[in-house]
């Protein structure tokens, strides 16, 4: 993985000093809260329901055991013993104290971590594919490019006061695991007819109040032009994005208002002027960064491992976990392990300091020191020898990190909701907990099959409910928490936004309503091979409306 050179380290260290100075000025009254707020947001520090919240960057989701141990230390020393992984592969701590945040940042700087630009109207954490470098279907590892974009976007003097936040995602595999269609800029590594790799550029996607899928901006961009092209998009957005209305300020609004083709033409015009300037990436730097992502020293192993096969036959629970959570690695004899952070009755994405320390040890012992965070709020041990899978599973199981539910209904993605967040209308975590208890039987999970369920506590959609096969949105009705259900979303290559099923459900009604939806699917699907989302696409909303609200409600639009 990338290691800071003296320049990266200097920049992060100087940022810590700068923020220390800004906090001192704030506490001394030299900065008002209005002046301080954008400055603290650019360091990932929010003021939330109970306390401040610090969002720490995990660039493209990659951690080392050393970094993870430092996060455990911060959880114990400065917070309440746990952290929360987010849908943008960052980590949040919910109780830091303002006067201690510069110290926290100093600790982070010691392990090459920071909270730079994890909030504010600037370019945010670049996310990628959690299986990068290990996946069997990978065309090219997107992470070196994510690192190149990270550096270019850090303290960009022109783009630090944008109309609104800006999120970039990069994928390098046939299967998009980075949800590029719902990002402000989505980049996909593709191959042209000459066999060269370059970027397919998508622009103007996003969720939140106005969910929109990105449009294709450029079919093929040669790699050495990546930064100049991004510069062109950002400059166009900085100048023309709306500043009058915070809810209309994202680039997705500008692209829709301008028209995708016209917007792409404007970007091309700007890009033509700058593409051969100083942002043209020198090959030397591209190679320098790529060297950090060179494959680790794998052993030469057989694809079939006898110990693994024997353990599978002997231990049914292990076999179930292997089937659900273990993914094919491109190197023979290795496997990619998904670590589920969704135990029965747990808070999705929460990890205790003890668990972090254990996972750091497991990364060292079993995964060549590497561990990652996914935008589904799970983690990944990317390079595990098949012969070690049983031993690893036993360790994970003891720490409640081996729930065999990857991609199943209890693998819930949820924002923190009203339990933590000032923006929320309803609590999301208790709904996730009750759903995960209701759907805890592993045989039931198998029977239901692949099902993405996302919960957001408000229309800002940090739980990405629009792209859930089932989405749940918390709303406030007369001061009570109610839940609206959407069906048919997807964040992958078949990207789609979910549609509202009908009137919202109360706190007591929501779990039975989800159960009804599942029963409808199980009773009527074409067979085990037909996934929930495919069944919905085939039959539409009517069977679900009938089951939930009664036969007369079918073929009428949603009540709300």
């Amino acid at each position, binding site marked *: 993985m990338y290691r800071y*050179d003296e*320049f*990266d380290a*200097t*920049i992060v260290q*100087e*940022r810590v*000093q*700068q923020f220390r*100075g*800004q906090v001192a000025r704030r506490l001394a009254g030299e900065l008002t809260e209005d*002046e301080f707020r*954008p*400055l603290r947001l650019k360091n990932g520090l929010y003021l939330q329901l109970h306390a401040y919240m610090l969002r720490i960057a995990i660039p493209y989701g990659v951690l080392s055991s050393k970094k993870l141990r430092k996060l455990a230390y911060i959880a114990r020393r400065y917070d309440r013993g746990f952290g929360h992984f987010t849908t943008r592969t960052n980590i949040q701590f919910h109780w830091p104290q303002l006067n201690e945040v510069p110290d926290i940042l100093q600790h982070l700087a010691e392990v090459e971590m920071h909270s730079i630009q994890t909030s504010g*109207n600037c370019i945010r954490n670049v996310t990628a594919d959690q299986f990068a470098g290990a996946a069997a279907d990978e065309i090219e590892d997107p992470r070196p490019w994510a690192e190149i974009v990270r*550096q*270019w976007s*850090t*303290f*960009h*003097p*022109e*783009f*630090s*006061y*944008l109309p609104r936040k800006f999120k970039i995602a990069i994928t390098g595999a046939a299967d998009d695991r980075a949800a590029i269609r719902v990002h402000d800029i989505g980049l996909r590594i593709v191959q042209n007819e000459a066999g060269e790799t370059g970027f397919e550029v998508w622009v103007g996607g996003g969720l939140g109040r106005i969910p929109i899928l990105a449009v294709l901006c450029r079919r093929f961009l040669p790699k050495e032009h990546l930064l100049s092209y991004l510069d062109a998009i950002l*400059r166009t957005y*900085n*100048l023309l994005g709306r*500043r009058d209305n915070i809810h209309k300020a994202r680039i997705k609004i500008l692209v829709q208002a301008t028209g995708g083709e016209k917007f792409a033409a404007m970007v091309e015009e700007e890009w033509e*002027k*700058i593409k*051969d*300037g*100083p*942002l*043209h990436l*020198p090959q*030397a*730097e591209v190679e*320098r960064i790529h060297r950090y992502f060179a494959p680790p020293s794998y052993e030469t192993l057989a694809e079939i491992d006898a110990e693994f096969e024997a353990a599978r036959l002997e231990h049914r629970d292990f076999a179930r976990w292997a089937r659900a959570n273990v993914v094919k690695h491109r190197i023979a004899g290795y496997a990619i392990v998904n670590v589920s952070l969704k135990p029965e009755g747990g808070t999705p994405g929460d990890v205790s300091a003890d668990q972090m320390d254990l996972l750091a040890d497991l990364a060292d012992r079993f995964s060549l020191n590497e561990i990652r965070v996914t935008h589904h709020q799970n983690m990944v041990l990317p390079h595990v020898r098949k012969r070690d899978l049983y031993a690893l599973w036993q360790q994970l199981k003891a720490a409640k990190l081996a729930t065999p539910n990857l991609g199943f209904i209890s693998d819930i993605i949820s924002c923190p909701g009203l339990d933590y967040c000032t923006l929320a209308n309803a609590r999301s975590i208790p709904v996730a907990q009750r759903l995960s208890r209701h759907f805890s039987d592993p045989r039931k999970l198998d029977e239901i099959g692949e099902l993405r369920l996302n919960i957001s506590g408000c229309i800002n959609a940090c739980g990405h409910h629009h792209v859930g096969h089932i989405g749940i949105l918390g709303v406030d009705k007369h001061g009570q928490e109610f839940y609206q259900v959407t069906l048919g979303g997807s964040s992958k290559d078949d990207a789609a936004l979910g549609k509202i099923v009908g009137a919202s459900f109360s706190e007591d009604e929501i779990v039975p309503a989800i159960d009804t939806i599942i029963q409808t699917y199980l009773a009527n699907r074409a067979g085990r091979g037909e996934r929930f989302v495919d069944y919905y696409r085939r039959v539409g909303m009517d069977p679900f409306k009938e089951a939930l609200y009664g036969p007369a409600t079918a073929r009428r639009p949603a009540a709300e």
Partner: protein
Amino acid sequence: MALLRHGALQPNDWRFVADDAAVPDDGAVTVSLNRWQAEGEALRSRAAPTGVRLKNDETALALAADAHRLPLIELEFPKFTDGRAFSQARILRDKLGYQGELRAFGNILRDQYFYMTRCGIDAVELPDGKPTEGYLAALKEFSAWYQPASDGRTTVLELRHPANANTRRGAAPLVSESVAAHAL
């Protein structure tokens, strides 16, 4: 309103003349873009220095024909969160090769000053009552920066690959004399 230019506080000799007021024969003045475009001939033949005050929703490219003759262009920050002037500054420096003075005014935080100088801005009009030492300290907060901008400062990329000639391709001049004068 004092002017912070090249690290020193200086008196501001310039005056903005509103569209409905008469432009005096002498004294350094700036006028709006609309006025500059409407009364170009008269303003160009003025003996005293005349500059343009750009609104941040106006396109900097509108000054393409005149950039070489303008001694001063003023860029507005109506709210410090509104960062359009950063792009306007870069367009003026990099696309139009503007060599005169670029001045920022409006609602500005000292924490933006460094970015302003990187985008090619020479001077800021200081809000009344704010200590100025903070602005100079702000310029020293960072000693390394990743991206090439409009100030000609050496970037991390160039420090990493000193022999590499690629980073300076392109015809437009990257830095004005006035900016180079206070580049660190």
